[in-house]
């Protein structure tokens, strides 16, 4: 059963520490998205890639966040240094990249708590 895999599921860290979240998209999917979910802001798009190339990262605080796709099977989202306001659930989603009836498939998320 194909699914998007995210690690870790939970992360508790202290302010100032580096956090790296990983995502394995569904095999064959060529678009990958990073979303952040908070109670106050809801779901926000942070960045997305097509064919491993970043298409839009305007939703991401550039000074501390970075997103990469070192290969087609791995996407990473890094926060350095982390701050308490970064506490949220971070979702990765993948899609086939263009068919009109394409659905996006979401991973289980990484729940991040920055103390």
């Amino acid at each position, binding site marked *: 059963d194909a699914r998007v895999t995210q690690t870790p599921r939970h992360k508790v860290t202290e302010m100032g520490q580096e956090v790296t979240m990983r995502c394995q998209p569904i095999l064959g999917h060529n*678009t990958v998205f990073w979303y952040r979910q908070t109670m106050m802001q*809801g779901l926000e*798009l942070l960045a*997305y890639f*097509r064919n491993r190339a970043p298409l839009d990262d305007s939703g991401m605080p550039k000074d501390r966040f970075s997103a990469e796709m070192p290969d087609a099977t791995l996407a990473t989202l890094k926060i350095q240094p982390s701050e308490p306001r970064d506490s949220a659930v971070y979702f990765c989603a993948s899609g086939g990249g263009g068919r009109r009836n394409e*659905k*996006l498939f979401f991973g289980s998320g990484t729940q991040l708590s920055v103390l």
Partner: protein
Amino acid sequence: ELKVEQNPLFLSMQEGKNYTIYCNYSTTSDRLYWYRQDPGKSLESLFVLLSNGAVKQEGRLMASLDTKARLSTLHITAAVHDLSATYFCAVDITGSQGNLIFGKGTKLSVKP
């Protein structure tokens, strides 16, 4: 700036009743999604609506899209407890499966 507004944000229903969730958006789009999220879980895709007048149904849920009115509805028929969840609509503004802008979600609670 694109806005996607859902209402109501909270909905408490009795089992067996019908209700509709509304999703209004502020810019042209030809692709609208509905997702379901259970507490502490991921988002599950329910429907993808691609054209004006599109209607899709699965079980007790039916979604429709009016692109001229920039309105989508999610209709719940004869609600059951298992439908309790948060429902999100999302609008694709790039036209090629790109940037999804989500509504705030409607938290549905179905009571016996």
